């Protein structure tokens, strides 16, 4: 009998977990070595935010890949999704620590007066229930409603992108690139949805 030349799933799982932690490990190392410059908070805010956006794009890529034939992809989507939530949470923690200094009054003022903060916070809020229901048991318990709930990924994506766009000062290049990527990934779903509705 011939063996198929594929890696066992646990091996790939380890690889995906490793890949998801890599940016964090690198950033932590650079931070510990003082290689993030005189304002490490700014670098960390930027990098955690960007890795979250990249992860989000990969999460959204899972369905098209499954459709193209790689059914096993969903096994790894969860790891990716939880990682995205962790990077966004880190991003938020840094904001609380460095930019508002854990002052409740200042946080409320930032949320009220600065739309990009509110938009970013809403993105985190929409990801929160997804992270909380990422276990097998939660998925079983919720049944059909799990899929409905997890459609929150779409508003979260739009909010995250709006957050990025709103932060651009003079160069919108990055926001345009992510915008195109998300437009393709969400557009693919919209097309499928219309085809099925017909």
């Amino acid at each position, binding site marked *: 009998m011939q063996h198929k030349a594929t890696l066992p799933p646990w091996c790939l799982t380890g690889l995906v977990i490793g890949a998801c932690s890599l940016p964090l490990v690198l950033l932590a190392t650079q931070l510990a070595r003082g290689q993030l410059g005189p304002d*490490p908070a700014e670098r960390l805010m930027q990098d955690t935010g960007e890795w979250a956006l990249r992860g989000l794009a990969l999460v959204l890529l899972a369905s098209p890949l499954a459709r193209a034939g790689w059914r096993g992809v969903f096994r790894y989507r969860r790891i990716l999704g939880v990682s995205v939530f962790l990077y966004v949470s880190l991003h938020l923690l840094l904001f609380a620590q460095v930019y508002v200094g854990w002052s409740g009054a200042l946080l409320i003022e930032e949320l009220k007066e600065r739309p990009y903060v509110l938009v970013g916070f809403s993105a985190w809020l929409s990801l929160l229930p997804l992270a909380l229901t990422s276990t097998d048991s939660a998925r079983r318990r919720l049944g059909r409603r799990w899929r409905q709930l997890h459609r929150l990924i779409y508003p979260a994506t739009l909010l995250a992108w709006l957050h990025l766009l709103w932060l651009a000062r003079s160069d919108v290049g990055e926001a345009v690139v992510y915008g195109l990527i998300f437009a393709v990934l969400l557009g693919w779903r919209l097309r499928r949805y219309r085809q099925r509705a017909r």
Partner: protein
Amino acid sequence: MTKRIYTDPSIASSDITPESVFLNRRAFIKASSGTAASALGISTALSSAGEPSGLIYKDAPDESLRAEQTPYDAVTTYNNFYEFGTDKSDPARHAHSMTTDPWTIKVGGLVDQPGELHLEDVMSGFDLEERIYRFRCVEAWSMVVPWIGFPLSALLKRFAPRAEGRFVEFKTLYRRSEMRGTRSFTSVIDWPYREGLRLDEAMHPLTLMAVGLYGKTLPNQNGAPLRLVVPWKYGFKSIKSIVEINVTAEQPETSWQTLQPSEYGFYANVNPEVDHPRWSQRFERKLPSSIFKPNRVPTLPFNGYQEQVAGLYEGMDLRQFY
């Protein structure tokens, strides 16, 4: 020769060391370190290699911020100079491509003697002095920088501004081949970078033309060979690598104000009471900052220079003219 020297508002005159004592102490230090110019209170800068960098300057008239100076590495690796990219580390990585010698500054507009200044005229034609200033960026971080330079007023007087001149306009070098940031397709800045001051702001003794920092000539990323430093205004007013100066009757169009008038005003005086629409200006991260000790400090009106400059804006609503 009498010179108008600025003072720091946080020091009472009773705290100031008498000049004789100060000079004696300094002479002693300099003599023991073998510097010939010591008795004159003049410093000869040494570069890291120990070679004189050519800058001869008078010591800072006010030393009160000396202990708070931001480390040289931070000052020269964390910069906003969008001509070389929008990331803080881009200027230090890419600004070396800018040719700063030869360099010509065109001075014109409403002046009686329009003309040009060459790099040599700038470096040898003015009495250089050190000024240790707070530097507050509109992005809510700050530094303390020991600049070397001369008052802008000294430069302007040479070209004899006319009575009808009320503003001064500045332009940064725009050379696409040497400035990769200006070649970005998605940048919305209309190059060259432009800034401006009211003539009385420009003539104020605190307003400095800097040619160096930390005793050395300016690194390219910090605006070599010649930049403006207006310590009571947000950093974007302190335009870098200047090639043109014009005295005008009308308020000049400035880059950030043109781009986003609701966020960046012409005056751009540091003001904790007027927020940037996207973030608060009440606090600043005094760099170097860290995650666990962010070094957040309250921002001071006019960046701590209220006593010297508030008079320039008497009767003006600073919320309207931000």
